[in-house]
């Protein structure tokens, strides 16, 4: 890790045949930071996340995640990151304990350690009694919190959250963000994409993508000042649809 940087992206380009999904991206993400990644659908967010998490190879440019080059060592990156997707990522027909055991096992944590962490986790989320319940029987807000906790069970350096709070009510979203803060305070870097502009305000820094390019990157306060806007939502509208506003 260089100077507390956990993600370094230099001149990243990703082309699909003739379509350029990521057009010369440049940014750094620091340890313990909550980094918001905004953009309209099709702006190239998902492609970027896939490259950062070792699923896709970049066409050109330099990508270093958790100290490893994404071109050469995608497998090493995978061991050091957590991931939670917009679609729900736990198994509905398995119990809470079984899900935790499965993901813990996949990341090579020893059984004893998994059990300890499961107990801690359930206690901190205040649902000890849910351990033997099937995931499908839990309310969505709880599932989401649980999915996040499972994604950071192996104490990754970075956790990628792809629209983690889709379809969740505001109250549950707030609680979810408390978990994110808590993880960040433990030194886990949180890389999050979201549709909810109020959530963008919670991030330490926000980048906004448009047509495969990063068009703005700064703290929420600074962005609002630059674009003379009262909220990130306004900033976003001004950037994404400059002709209409």
């Amino acid at each position: 890790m260089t100077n507390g940087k956990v993600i370094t992206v230099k001149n990243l380009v990703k082309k699909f045949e003739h379509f350029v999904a990521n057009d010369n991206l440049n940014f750094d993400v620091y340890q313990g930071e909550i980094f918001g990644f905004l953009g309209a659908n099709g702006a190239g967010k998902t492609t970027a996340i896939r490259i950062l998490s070792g699923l896709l190879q970049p066409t050109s440019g330099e990508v270093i995640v958790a100290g490893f080059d994404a071109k050469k060592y995608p497998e090493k990156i995978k061991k050091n990151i957590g991931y939670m997707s917009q679609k729900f990522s736990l198994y509905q027909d398995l119990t809470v304990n079984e899900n935790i055991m499965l993901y813990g096992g996949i990341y090579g944590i020893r059984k004893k350690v998994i059990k300890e962490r499961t107990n801690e986790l359930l206690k901190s989320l205040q649902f000890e009694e849910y351990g033997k319940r099937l995931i499908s029987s839990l309310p969505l807000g709880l599932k989401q919190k649980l999915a996040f906790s499972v994604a950071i069970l192996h104490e990754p350096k970075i956790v990628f959250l792809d629209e983690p709070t889709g379809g969740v009510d505001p109250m549950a979203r707030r609680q979810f963000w408390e978990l994110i803060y808590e993880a960040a305070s433990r030194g886990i870097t949180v890389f999050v994409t979201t549709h909810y502009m109020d959530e963008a305000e919670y991030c330490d820094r926000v980048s906004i993508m448009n047509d495969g390019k990063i068009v703005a990157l700064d703290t929420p306060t600074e962005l609002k000042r630059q674009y003379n806007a009262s909220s990130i939502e306004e900033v976003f509208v001004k950037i994404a649809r400059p002709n209409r506003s």
Partner: protein
Amino acid sequence: MKRFIGFVKKEFLHIFRDFRTLIILFGIPTAQILIFGFVVSTEITDVDIAFLDLSKDEVTQNLTDKFCSSGFFRGVDNLHSYNDIDDILKSGRAKAVVIFSENFGRDLMSQGKASISIIADGSEPNTATFITNYASAIISDFNKDFIKDGSESRLLVQSEVSMFYNPELKGHFMFVPGVIAYILILICALMTSITITREKEFGTMEVLLVSPLKPIQIIIGKVVPYFILSFINVILILSLSWLVFGLPVKGSMLLLLAESMLYILMSLSLGIFISTVSKNMQQAIFISLVGLLLPTILLSGFIFPIENMPKVYDIVSSVLPPRYFITIVKSIMIKGTGFLYIWKETLILILMTIVFIGLSVKKFKIRLE
């Protein structure tokens, strides 16, 4: 390896927790064996046939009696000229006409050959096949008696080999290989394609791909439980057909099980391939059912004999894996032949497995790009 075992365990949990999956896995094979064994009978009895005896001698009389006393046929009429054939078939009073040529007995004695024609009502092709098969069996039987007297006969050539190995003409023998073939392809291809597309649909596949598990581990981990359960199914079907219908395995049991493993492997790779080309579970189910199950039942020789199909269907059927597996199982179970006689079919199944795995790997890579 530890990661992998945990992953396989999870796949078993999916299966045992879903009642419907369990029914498909074990309920359907049991029901199929019993239904086909007891209800669907492909045997024929008392089919109405007519005779046109232009020779009217001792030999033809003997043969006529043999037909009528076999229990499969009932003589309804004796015709007098070729002109009557059309009428009796059209009216439906007889399903087939057996014609003895003129001087039948005399030719047989003097030249050692005589010709007999069987004209069957082709509007019911299936029945017609059975009639001609059964009739040839009876004639071949007659030949054997005749040979004992020291003469030779061209008629021997006409007998159907399959009848020879199934002298009691039991229907059960025909369907067991077919049921094994299509149950296995149903379970392996349908279930694996569903279980893989389900991960895609629920978004868990993404999480797995981002995890340290390698794609190949994910696929194998998902397929291993179905391999084991399908193999248990083979044993279940074989024991059921042995216990309930008294159908033994004539050839090598080891060879039969080994060939079954190969076929299961082929079906699993086919299932993986289906999952790579389908976007969601519905599509996977549709492709498996319409693309696999129906052709397997209709075209692989399970119910309708391939020899009886128009050329076009024969060609279509030659790309269906069950066709070869049915041949293999029939050879081992009923004829008791060894590997030398089925190496061609085995090779075809191996090639198919390689092709499906190759295509899946290619597709999988393209999708990730």
